């Protein structure tokens, strides 16, 4: 079969590959070390610091690789299973950053419990490893491996606080639905295999034409099933039903983990697969993407309108955001692949930054609620008059909400600008109008949040716990830093995109 011969068979594991793969290797090695550390001494503080160190080093390694020239050009193929290029490592850096944020935010969520939570941190690291494998994969098998590692670890995390009201429900929902999604995906992969006889992404399935015409239906169905598996994970409509419940039931840092790490990794692998398999030439696939994207924009935005619970609102808004992001998949030709990656990664970073910012504040408020002996989720009303009492936090919140809404001065706007560029090049006017209308509806729930922050009112939270500085110094620096980054990248996006060009 000649299409197999087209693939470069790489079997030798060279020193260069080792260097290129070092972030992922380091992460896996770190996880083993963490296990040993637990065996040696069980201390929550230690494991938390240790996981942060691992993540920081992984991040530094991938940034180091990004700034070097090892990855320039086509990228490096590491066996048939993995292939890394600058895009995968930029994505990996984003993943590490979000995982780092999750670990840092977790500390206080776990404080209320008595046990030692080593496995919690281990699971987070495993999720990150799964995500790292996903973004590096170049083969359906490695992708599925990463996918499962990510999902199974997440299931454990979602139901982690088992005595919480919705924890078990959320865990079960996530378990069953994600298992369904995986099986859909496996079936899809099998169908694709039946057509191409190869599981590597590099085989352009559109180019394969040896099978008789009736069998080509298998290919289309295979792609569809594969896509629906990923759509489950990205909670795209109509596969979105689990998202709000699971987001609400999961511990707040884990909600952030799902909203960022899991989704970014899934989306990266989706782009990678679509671009190298050339699905953008497949008319049926394009139609499916357009329908799913429009549906997600509409469903996500309209259902978010009446939400009071922040976590549910974020769940719905992220449905809409990934609907917008699907625009990336509709590139018109191979020349625009680089620009598409650039747009996608910029949008994803804006999305991640905004989510981390919002969850930082949600956690701060959750902490206060629990100090007032109220174990419940943060609602929009809780943020009333934040601007007049807690300026720094409020500014961060406003900036990130504006960023999600795509208003200038913020990263989100530049991201949206990239997406619109993308949509105009590929002339997908349906998606353009979806994006415009979707953002319009989106404003109807983003703006009220900002107005609530500005609303004059009683100091909603009991301030007695915090006579003066509501925030201790280090989070305040962190928050100020987040504000500066989102403004800076919103006004000078070049400083970010030069990494990708």
């Amino acid at each position, binding site marked *: 079969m000649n299409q197999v011969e087209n693939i470069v068979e790489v079997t030798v594991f060279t020193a260069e590959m080792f260097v290129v793969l070092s972030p992922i290797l380091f992460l896996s090695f770190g996880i083993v070390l963490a296990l040993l550390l637990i065996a040696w001494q069980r201390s929550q503080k230690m494991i938390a610091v240790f996981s942060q160190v691992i993540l920081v080093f992984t991040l530094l390694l991938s940034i180091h690789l990004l700034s070097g020239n090892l990855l320039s050009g086509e990228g490096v193929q590491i066996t048939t299973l993995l292939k890394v290029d600058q895009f995968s490592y930029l994505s990996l850096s984003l993943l590490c950053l979000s995982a780092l944020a999750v670990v840092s935010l977790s500390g206080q969520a776990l404080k209320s419990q008595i046990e030692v939570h080593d496995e919690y941190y281990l699971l987070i690291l495993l999720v990150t490893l799964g995500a790292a494998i996903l973004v590096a994969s170049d083969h359906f098998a490695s992708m599925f491996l990463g996918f499962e590692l990510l999902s199974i670890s997440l299931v454990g995390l979602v139901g982690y606080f088992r005595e919480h009201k919705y924890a078990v429900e959320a865990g079960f929902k996530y378990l069953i639905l994600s298992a369904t999604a995986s099986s859909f995906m496996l079936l899809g992969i099998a169908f694709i295999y039946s057509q191409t006889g190869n599981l590597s992404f590099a085989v352009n399935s559109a180019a394969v034409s040896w099978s008789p015409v009736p069998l080509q239906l298998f290919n289309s169905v295979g792609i569809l099933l594969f896509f629906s598996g990923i759509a489950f994970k990205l909670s795209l409509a109509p596969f979105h039903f689990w998202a709000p419940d699971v987001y609400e039931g999961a511990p707040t840092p884990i909600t952030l983990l799902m909203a960022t790490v899991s989704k970014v990794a899934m989306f990266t692998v989706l782009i990678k697969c679509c671009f190298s398999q050339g699905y953008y030439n497949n008319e049926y696939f394009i139609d499916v993407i357009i329908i799913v994207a429009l549906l997600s924009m509409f469903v996500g935005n309209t259902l978010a309108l009446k939400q009071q619970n922040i976590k549910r609102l974020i769940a719905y808004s992220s449905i809409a955001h990934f609907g917008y992001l699907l625009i990336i998949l509709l590139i018109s030709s191979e020349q625009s692949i680089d620009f598409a990656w*650039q747009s996608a990664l910029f949008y994803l970073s804006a999305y991640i930054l905004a989510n981390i910012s919002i969850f930082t504040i949600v956690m701060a408020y959750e902490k206060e609620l629990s100090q007032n002996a109220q174990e419940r989720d943060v609602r929009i009303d809780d943020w009333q008059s934040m601007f*007049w009492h807690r300026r720094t936090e409020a500014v961060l919140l406003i900036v990130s909400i*504006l960023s999600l809404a795509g*208003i*200038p*001065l913020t990263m989100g*706007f530049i991201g949206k*600008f990239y997406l*619109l*560029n993308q949509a*105009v*090049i590929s002339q997908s006017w349906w998606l*353009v109008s979806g*994006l*415009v*209308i979707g*953002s*319009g509806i989106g*404003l*109807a729930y983003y*703006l*009220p949040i*900002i*107005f609530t922050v*500005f609303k*004059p009112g009683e100091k909603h939270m009991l301030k007695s716990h915090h006579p003066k500085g509501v925030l201790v110094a280090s989070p305040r620096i962190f928050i100020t830093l987040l504000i500066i980054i989102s403004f800076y990248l919103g006004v*000078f*996006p*070049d400083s970010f*995109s*030069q990494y990708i*060009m």
Partner: protein
Amino acid sequence: MMLTFIIFGLLLSGSVAWVTDNKVFAGIKFQAKWVSLLSVLALGSYFLLLVYFSNNNFQQLQLFERVSWISSLNIDYALALDTLSITLIVLTFILAVVCILVSWEEIQEKSGFYYFNLLATFSGVIGVFSAVDMFLFFFFWEVMLIPMTAIIAIWGHENRYFAAVKFFIFTQVSSLLMLVAIIAMAYIHQQQTGVMSFYYQDWLTLDIKIDVAQYLMLGFFIAFAVKLPSVPFHSWLPDAHTQAPTAGSVLLAGILLKTGAYGLIRFVIFLFPQASENFAPIAATLAVISILYGAKMAFAQSDFKRLVAYSSISHMGFVMLAIFSFNEIAYQGAIVTMVAHGLSSAALFSLAGMIYQRIHSRNLDDMGGFWQSAPRMGGFGLAFAAAAFGLPGLANFVGEFLSLVGAFQVFPIMVVFASLGLIGSAIYGMLLFQKTFQGVPLQQVQDLSVREFIICGSLLGLLVVLGLYPNIILGYAFGVFA
């Protein structure tokens, strides 16, 4: 650097006003209103000096700066001025002073943040009037929106959140359509010349197929028609005006609506001459509908500010009609109407604010007979109402007259209908005056204070000067079509 200095100077002094509000430094108690007033006056006179002593010929766009901004997409930071933008920037500065003065006593709470928002809006507006890179233009277009929404939402009246959201969504959605058109233009430039460009002067040389141009023009047109506002995109305006604090209404009516007209002239007409000429009958029809509908609705209002808001729709209809007539006289009429309406609506909204401060109501039924206790206020009220319905001798008359004369050569029948709007404006103008100042006095009100007298007096003075000697603007704006 000078224009950048003005734009960022406003933003910076806004921040200074916010930070130093009600704080004592070196024995002086800083107040945000003083900081803002002084900085606006200083930057305004700096701008005037800059233009006056410059040797540039402002008949054409004069580039002031052009620096690369987002190099991957070939986006520049480019500012330029010509007579049109200078006229509107001067108007902005005049109304900026008015805005600060009308807020002087009205805004007591969170005044630092209020003046920051006010100055940020001015800075955005001046950016809009001077940007010649389309991405930068869009950037400023949106940036001026955020502080404006904050002003409505924080210091507005009872139904402010609804009004602010409505205002924001209308403008945002329509401007996204414009953004799509902007991006499409940049790609057409790339197809024709090989490089992407967002630079206005580059776009002028593009040769766009008429069927594509038609759609792109529509993208820009809708964004500006919402801002203008023209029927059927007007419904945000009465709400936003009514709920905004006085300075917010002045700012909206006086300046923000003008950005719509400015955009129509600068971008729709100049970038798509053929397409807009094809579109002109529709635009003119919308304009006439706006004129008549605005007048009719104004007549039916019982809320002082709502009445003035609807009258704005009517007046901006004249501007749109004139712009789409494509001739010199109408064009000048449009410019004079823009300035005149900026001044007269600002005056009426300030008056509404002054009355609201005295009786805490905007309802015309609560008013009446104010002439007896406040004759000076009554006199100004009469003069401003007269300006609004186009009494000869005041600036609005010149503008509307020129617009109609110019448009008559192109759309004779529509102008006949549009002229009916003048009668309508006389009716609602007199109604406004009668219900407020005549009739049985319901309550005693205080007459104008010195500050209020200065506001009204200077606005009336400008209206009279422009009405008697419109050559100040006409001579300046002449020759843009030549």
